[in-house]
């Protein structure tokens, strides 16, 4: 098995007496899109800064591509592109000039840099405003320029901190597609932090839920829902009539069905396994007419919401 490109081993960051990051262990494979999901102030940005060696962990080890971020931050920063959440550009310089400055800071020769800057500006669809001052750019344009800026150094990993903050939905869609394409075409590993669940869900291979400095759960969205909803992993919506008592009893008797909720002409069934085929068979055999049967997957939104609901209840106990 190849070595993971990002390794965090029991990383802790303490500010005064508070843990910003609490014994975080995480590894991200090469070519993956990993979403770090959590509410504001969960320690996402702190974790990212430690990955880049911009902040020193109180204890633990951070490695990116086998290089220790704390001891050798410059080498790490050669491989990693970082798009901060409070991204800014030199407003009196054009987009192109801003990219060229980044290239100069990376020691890229001018001739190569010019070509690459043009390439990237085309890729992020900013070629027609390349010679405009960045002070006149819209938020969405700045974000796309930020992506181009991050790619100037030809990184192996890009880290995006709240990249979709404050962009309109169309802009978000474009931006996420762009990231997806980069991941597929150039095999760049992406670490993305966000509190926008839908967006993370759209493009991430794996997600980690990060609250109060701790990684509560990690995995694909499906496995997450399994981890968090041990009982009611599947939610099946059925519309049929007539909904007789007898039918409900029969449905409840199906193995793995935990609960049946009746709502006029439809039912919600919470099950442990996917038993929709059995359900439809039971309904049809009982003589009722089946109008529709729909399997609802748990989105991150629900995972997130349900999870916090559960936590609050725990806290109250």
């Amino acid at each position, binding site marked *: 098995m190849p070595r993971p490109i990002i390794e965090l081993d029991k990383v802790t960051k303490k500010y005064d007496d508070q843990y910003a990051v609490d014994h975080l262990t995480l590894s991200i494979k090469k070519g993956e899109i990993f979403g770090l999901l959590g509410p504001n102030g969960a320690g996402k940005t702190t974790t990212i800064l430690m990955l880049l060696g911009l902040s020193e962990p109180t204890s633990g080890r951070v490695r990116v591509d086998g290089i220790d971020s704390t001891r050798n931050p*410059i080498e790490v920063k050669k491989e990693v592109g970082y798009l901060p959440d*409070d*991204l*800014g550009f030199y407003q*009196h310089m054009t987009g192109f000039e801003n990219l060229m400055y980044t290239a100069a800071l990376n020691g890229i020769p001018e001739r190569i840099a010019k070509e690459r800057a043009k390439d990237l500006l085309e890729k992020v669809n900013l070629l027609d405003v390349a010679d405009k001052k960045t002070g006149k750019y819209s938020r969405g344009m700045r974000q796309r320029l930020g992506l181009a*800026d991050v790619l100037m150094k030809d990184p192996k990993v890009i880290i995006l901190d709240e990249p979709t903050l404050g962009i309109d939905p169309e802009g978000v869609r474009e931006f996420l597609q762009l990231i997806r394409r980069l991941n597929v075409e150039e095999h760049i590993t992406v670490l993305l932090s966000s509190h926008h669940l839908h967006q993370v869900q759209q493009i991430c291979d794996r997600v980690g839920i990060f609250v109060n400095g701790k990684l509560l759960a990690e995995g694909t969205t499906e496995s997450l829902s399994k981890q968090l909803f041990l009982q009611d992993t599947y939610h099946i919506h059925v519309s049929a009539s007539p909904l007789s008592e007898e039918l409900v009893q029969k449905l409840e008797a199906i193995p793995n069905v935990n609960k049946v909720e009746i709502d006029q002409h439809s039912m919600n069934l919470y099950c442990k396994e996917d038993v929709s085929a059995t359900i439809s068979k039971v309904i049809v055999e009982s003589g009722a007419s089946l109008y529709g049967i729909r399997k609802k997957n748990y989105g991150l939104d629900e995972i997130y919401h349900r999870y916090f609901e559960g936590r609050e209840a725990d806290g109250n106990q």
Partner: protein
Amino acid sequence: MEISKISSSVKRWFRTKEENETNTSKKNESVGNRVFFAIVRKEFADYLTSWRIIILLAIILLTCFGSLYTAVTTIKDAIEGSNDAEEIAKQSYLFLKLFTVSDGTLPSFVTFVGFLGPLLGIALGFDAINSERNRGTLSRLLSQPIPRDYVINGKFVAALLLNLVLFYALGLIFMALGILIIGIPPTFEEFFRILFFLLLIIVYIAFWLNLGILFSVVFRQAATSALSSIAIWLFFSVFYSMIIELISKPILSSSSITSVEQLINRQEFVLNLMRLSPNYLFSESTTTLLSPTVRSLGVLTVEQTTGAVAGPLPFGQSLLLIWPQITGLIAVTMICFTIAYILFMRQEIRAH
């Protein structure tokens, strides 16, 4: 046989490895230099295109040419009265007077520079770091593979370079115009005195520049750091001498003094208090450099002066006289920069 072969091949391998390592380290160094100068170049260009600096430069240029004009007219009037102008010029260090003389309508070059120089320094430094932070460019800058101190060093070097170019250009133009208008060339000594005077200006401005940079690291708001720097500048240029005067009155009052020695001691004490101000250090040094007739900066008794020939000091002696002042100025400059540097290196990157 075998063993010696192996050992020699191992040796060779080690040697090539060593060579490779030195090569790569050299290469890294040159890349590092290139990156550093990329930062300096960008900051320098930023200064030259920022309205704030352009306006200040324009003011400095205007006032300097104004003072040149008044100095030249005063000197011309003085020369016209005598026959052997060149001889007089040499003896009285006329050329240096270009920088110090005025007819009362406009202050001299020295006064103007002593006044506007600190402002220029502050204007160059006060938003060096906090503006990058507020615009969100600092985190982007620091996520590039550069050592963190490149940022602050680059800004300092760029601002210093601007001062160097500005004041040497200005000083040389001043001299050239002086030669053209008065028609008397400077002696070598005068020339060196002027070059050194220009260097002194740069050191002095560097102090205010570093103070500005220090405040730009400490304060998050550019306005706060600008106002605090200006407050310190005002304090030293206006209030400090008043305060010292206030303190010195009881100290120097004749009723409490019993001996000459005591008087001298107290005078020296007050003088040393004054010397805590960088402005005073600067003015002491400039007067010594530009008027060779200044022979001492402390108190002299009649005993010490009897028998002394009242002639101008040679350049080396003038320099010796102000050596402590210059070292003092450089020291405060370094202290400011060091504090700023350390604070910046330890600061958290996040703005919030």
